[in-house]
């Protein structure tokens, strides 16, 4: 199977479908910040 992965670079794939913007908003529990400050 490793042999197959060597052929990946020459393989041409077309992907057709919905492009979605995946947004990740990171936040901290406020209690953690306050504990850290005190």
């Amino acid at each position: 199977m490793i042999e197959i992965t060597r052929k990946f670079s020459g393989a041409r794939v077309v992907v057709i479908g919905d492009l979605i913007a995946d947004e990740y908003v990171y936040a901290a529990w406020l209690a953690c910040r306050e504990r850290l400050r005190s």
Partner: protein
Amino acid sequence: MSREAPVLILEYDSTEMVPGGAGNAASNVAALGGQVRLVSLVGRDEAGRRVQRVLPARVDRRGLVRPAGFRTPVKTRILAGGIHSAKQQVVRIDRMSPRAVTDAERVAIARAAHAAVRDADAVLISDYGSGLVTPALAKDVADRVRRRGVPVLVDSRYALTRYRGLTACAPNESEVEQALGVRIDDHLPVLERAGRRILQRTRMQAVIVTRGSRGMAVFEPGRKTVHIPIFGSDQIADVTGAGDTVMATLTLALAAGASVEDAARLANVAGGLVVMKRGTATIRAAELVRALRSV
């Protein structure tokens, strides 16, 4: 707790955007080292500009159609946690297009698809249910590449059995349960019947059912079902986008000339690796090779 309402207050840290849906599948093909062209709609809005900026440079954008008035779908996930601990998803807010995909947009996508598949070694159709991708488009594309024996795979959340006569699909167990109205759990005879029914209904050359911690089952007409155990530990960090990694690996492996069973085994390893990463992640070919050597 907030004094305004019984809700927690979070302190904002940072925002990150990654390509989702077909964009994630394309990113996965690119990360694995394949040449990939993405055919899709993208809005002329801020989200559209941002998502194009974060698409890997290796993704060919010539198939992107930018119609006026189309709004790029956005899924915003809020993740919260301690300063030094893993964050957990608290809520997801979806901003989908307020209107249906128009006929003119469908025609433009079909044209872009026709141009793109002319020299393709494999095609992946990723249907997230917006109405952009339809069984008619899939058939149209499959008819154009059939003479060259190019595999066409489909990933459809809600309309799996409406896609017929393609090369393969890889639904997860719950999608199979939904499509057939059955409950599989640990019952192998139920899984066997379900896999064979999906094969019959879709008239595909292969159906690969992904089973989470139970691995995969590969169904091909006239062949005994192959059960592949889960790769790696069952220490799952995040399953977001894992289906896209599995589909991308399957498609790229078939494009590279693998048999369905070998392609499924590779996809199983890639899927096992990606769920150990947080967020919508990808796997590089070198990681895949390292994992294969460790087996």
